[in-house]
């Protein structure tokens, strides 16, 4: 089905449903509301009028019956009729009861003729009655009648029995069974029972068809099909209906019972309204009422109207509405078809073109200009197809180009692979042959690194550690080098500085070896290193040599500085006496020139002392310069001898100051230059005497002790002591604490130098001024002393 028909159908169905819904609502009302719709209202109206008519009919019947009752009473109470009847009955009692006899008897009596004549007169007044008769109640013999033939006959036995059973004064009997095929109602009145006379029945016959039917005419109020139907208690028709009941022939229908619901309900004494089929088999709306007669007799009144007629006008309206609806539907469908065409046309062509494009025809276009959104859609579609076409063309040319490139690329790749293979072989050879270890931190994220066999050999790892982590390696770096390593790596990673550094790494044997690391990082597009690789070189030997060199340079520099300091000191201390000499020579010359000899002698003394001092200085400087070179062959030197010789040498000054010198007994023997060590000992003891101060009981003690590989020799005194601030300074060249002190300031510097040349140290300990002081020097024993002897000609 095409889009156009789908849309048209949808429009049609939609408008149909809407119109039907509207007319349904109009006709049948809205459910659950008071709006009943046309049908509801028509039905309500019909029911109302039927009910009204039915009530009216019931009233009429009832009134009519009571009129008949009054008639019966009036006639029966007519004096003449009453008296005649009474006379008749009295005579009858005397006669036999034989019917034939009575019949003849009655006919023979003039009273009877008078009674009948009287009744005939009455009938002329009461024209609505068919016949009036009087019958004796017991025998049922008719004693007077408007019909002469009846006089002397007996009443029907069944009728007589029924009459006898009724107990009221006046009553009605329906007598449908009548020769002229018309239902008759008998109005019966019992009378004449006064005195000794026999009771009699006055029976007045009314033809219902003739008398009652006109009363029940309903006119135009109930329309064409409006009708009143009377039935007895057995649903048998009392009046001829307008049409013959279905399946009944006209002569018989009055005796027929009709099986309709309203008739049945009315016959049963019920009242109400019902919609059902009537005697003709037509659907009717019927109101039914009943009027009670005596002796279980009843008149059922059914007022009915054809449903077809009730709703007839409505049907017309419905038809008209349906026609209009149909017209509307047709119009709507037409319009729908047209609109659908307007919309579906471009869509259809769009679909067709899309299908073509999908099928591979990129030349297909919608083309047609359509206004509105659809136009945009079709234009866009066309533009899209254009672009697809261009893409396809581009793609095709690209594929061509790419194919050509790929061919070239494959060739190039083959060439590169060959080169790579060659390169790999070269690399293998290089790795095997290289003296450098190689490392490749190939997965920096997971800290995985590859190490070449030479690498693991160099750092002393087992071969299975060829794959390892760099952080493990970092933990083996010497703690002092870690900072340097980190900053080198950071410098390379962050600033792309060349990665080249040296550090110590601990080998499994616990020894640190120097390695030179060089490498380079591979970086991703963001410049973040992803892989780092490089070489490792064992530079321990070079590093050791460098360290040794540095140590030597430092030593040399220290010596140089010392020499410089020495030179300045010497120049200063030598120039001092020279200045004195020159200046005072000048003063002396001047004084002599001016003939002023007062201070000449004093000045010459100054000159002489300065010259003397200069001479001592020069001697000691010479001495000091010699210490660097041990000229004497080192020998075993018993310290005890050394101490005693010193005391002997200084005996005069010791005595002068009254110093007690105490030499320990357990002094060991050391190894060294005897003459020099003698100088040290002499200097220390001399100093102790010189700086004894005001000590009244001066004492000096010379002792020694072994400490590790050293002998420590001490000279203690209880003299002036040395201020903590000057304990270092006193060992400097030309340093003197006391300007008044006679000395060059070279002594302790000299002693220190000698001890140092022997591989020992010289130091002082003093609690401070006045607390005495202990000068100690250490000398190596055993191995170190032996080394000293072998390096005896070493220049210092």
């Amino acid at each position, binding site marked *: 089905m095409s889009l156009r028909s789908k849309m048209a159908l949808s429009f049609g169905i939609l408008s149909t449903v809407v119109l039907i819904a509207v007319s349904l609502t109009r006709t049948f009302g809205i459910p659950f509301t008071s709006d009943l719709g046309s049908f509801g209202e028509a039905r309500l109206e019909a029911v109302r009028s039927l009910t009204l008519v039915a009530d009216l009919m019931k009233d009429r019947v009832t009134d009519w019956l009571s009129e008949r009752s009054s008639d019966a009473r009036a006639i029966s109470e007519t004096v003449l009729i009453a008296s005649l009847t009474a006379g008749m009955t009295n005579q009858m009692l005397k006669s036999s009861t034989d019917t034939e006899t009575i019949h003849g008897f009655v006919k023979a009596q003039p009273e009877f003729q008078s009674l009948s004549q009287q009744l005939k007169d009455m009938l002329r007044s009461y024209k609505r009655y068919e016949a009036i008769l009087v019958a004796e109640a017991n025998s049922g013999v008719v004693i007077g009648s408007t019909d002469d033939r009846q006089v002397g006959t007996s009443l029907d036995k069944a009728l007589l029995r029924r009459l006898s059973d009724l107990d009221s004064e006046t009553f009605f009997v329906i007598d449908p069974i009548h020769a002229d095929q018309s239902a008759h109602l008998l109005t019966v009145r019992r009378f004449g029972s006064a005195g000794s006379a026999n009771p009699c029945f006055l029976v007045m016959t009314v033809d219902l068809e003739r008398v009652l039917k006109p009363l029940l005419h309903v006119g135009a109020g109930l329309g064409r099909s409006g009708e009143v139907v009377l039935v007895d208690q057995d649903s048998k028709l009392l009046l001829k209906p307008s049409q013959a009941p279905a399946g009944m022939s006209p002569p018989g229908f009055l005796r027929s019972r009709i099986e309709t619901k309203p008739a049945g309900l009315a016959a049963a004494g019920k009242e109400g309204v019902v919609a059902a089929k009537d005697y003709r088999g037509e659907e009717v709306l019927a109101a039914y009422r009943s009027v009670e007669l005596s002796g279980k007799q009843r008149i059922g009144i059914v007022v009915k109207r054809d449903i077809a007629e009730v709703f007839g006008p409505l049907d017309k309206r419905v038809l008209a509405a349906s026609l209009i609806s149909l017209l509307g539907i047709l119009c709507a469908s037409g319009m729908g078809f047209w609109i659908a065409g307007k919309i579906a046309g471009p869509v259809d062509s769009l679909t067709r073109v899309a299908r073509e494009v999908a099928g591979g025809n990129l030349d297909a276009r919608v083309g047609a200009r359509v206004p509105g959104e659809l136009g945009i859609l079709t234009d866009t579609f066309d533009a899209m197809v254009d672009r697809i076409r261009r893409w396809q063309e581009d793609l095709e040319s690209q594929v061509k180009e790419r194919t050509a490139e790929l061919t070239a690329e494959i060739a190039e790749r083959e060439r590169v692979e060959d080169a790579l293979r060659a390169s790999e072989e070269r690399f293998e050879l290089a790795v095997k042959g290289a003296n450098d270890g190689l490392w490749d931190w190939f997965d920096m994220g997971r800290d995985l690194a590859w190490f070449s066999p030479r690498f693991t050999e160099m750092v002393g790892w087992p071969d299975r550690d060829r794959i390892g982590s760099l952080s493990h390696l970092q933990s083996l770096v010497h703690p002092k080098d870690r900072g340097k390593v980190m900053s080198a790596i950071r410098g390379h990673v962050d600033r792309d500085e060349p990665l080249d550094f040296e550090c110590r790494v601990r080998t499994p044997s616990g020894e640190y070896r120097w390695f030179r690391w060089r490498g380079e990082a591979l970086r991703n597009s963001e410049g973040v290193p992803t892989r780092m690789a490089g070489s490792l070189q064992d530079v321990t030997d070079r590093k050791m040599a460098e360290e040794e060199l540095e140590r030597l340079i430092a030593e040399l520099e220290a010596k140089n500085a010392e020499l410089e300091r020495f030179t*300045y000191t010497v120049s200063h201390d030598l120039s*001092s006496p020279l*200045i004195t000499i*020159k200046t005072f020579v*000048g003063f002396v010359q001047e004084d002599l020139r001016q003939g002023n000899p007062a201070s000449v002698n004093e000045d010459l003394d*100054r000159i002489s002392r300065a010259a003397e001092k200069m001479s001592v200085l020069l001697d000691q400087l010479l001495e000091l310069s010699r210490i660097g070179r041990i000229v004497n062959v080192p020998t075993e030197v018993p310290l005890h001898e050394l101490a005693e010789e010193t005391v002997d040498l200084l005996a005069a000054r010791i005595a002068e100051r009254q110093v007690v010198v105490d030499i320990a007994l357990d002094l060991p023997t050391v190894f060294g230059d005897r003459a020099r060590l003698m100088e040290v000992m002499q200097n220390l003891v001399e100093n102790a005497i010189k700086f004894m101060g005001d000590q009244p009981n001066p004492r000096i003690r010379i002792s020694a002790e072994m400490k590790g590989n050293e002998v420590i020799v001490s000279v203690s005194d209880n003299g002036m002591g040395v201020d903590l601030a000057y304990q270092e300074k006193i060992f400097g060249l030309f340093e*003197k604490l006391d*300007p008044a002190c006679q000395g060059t300031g070279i002594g302790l510097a000299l002693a220190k130098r000698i001890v140092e040349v022997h591989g020992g140290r010289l130091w002082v300990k003093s609690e401070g001024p006045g607390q005495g002081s202990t000068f100690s020097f250490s000398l190596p024993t055993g191995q170190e002393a032996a080394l000293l002897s072998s390096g005896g000609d070493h220049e210092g």
Partner: protein
Amino acid sequence: MRGEPLRILLVEDNEDHAEAVKRSFRKHKLKNHIVHLTDGESALDFLLGRGEHEWSKTRLRPHLVILDLRLPRVDGLEVLRVIKETDELRRMPVIILTSSKAETDIARAYDYRANSYVVKPLDFEKFVGLMKDLGFYWLAWNVNPYPET
């Protein structure tokens, strides 16, 4: 020329040199009053007034300090450093008079803000002449940083 004598603190461990200085001033009839101390420690004691706190009539502030570098106990550079780091003394002119021509000594002396650095001449005439110039300059031309009260 001021009427008052030039008060000099001479710190010199060499007795002969001190005598030469004094005699040079005398020879040129420079009015002076020289306090001679032979080591750094006593010089600092004197300047910092250890024991006596205020400069006074009995303890006059020197106009000039003539300082040798190589001194016993506390050397001249240390004395110079203390003078220049002490608020009370820092403006006091300090002349280094030494036999050392060592560059390090000269540099350090000036680093410590010595006001002048003079090397003792070996020549008699020059020695006496230097003392005369020195005396005249500081007595006649130099403005005393501490106004006399």
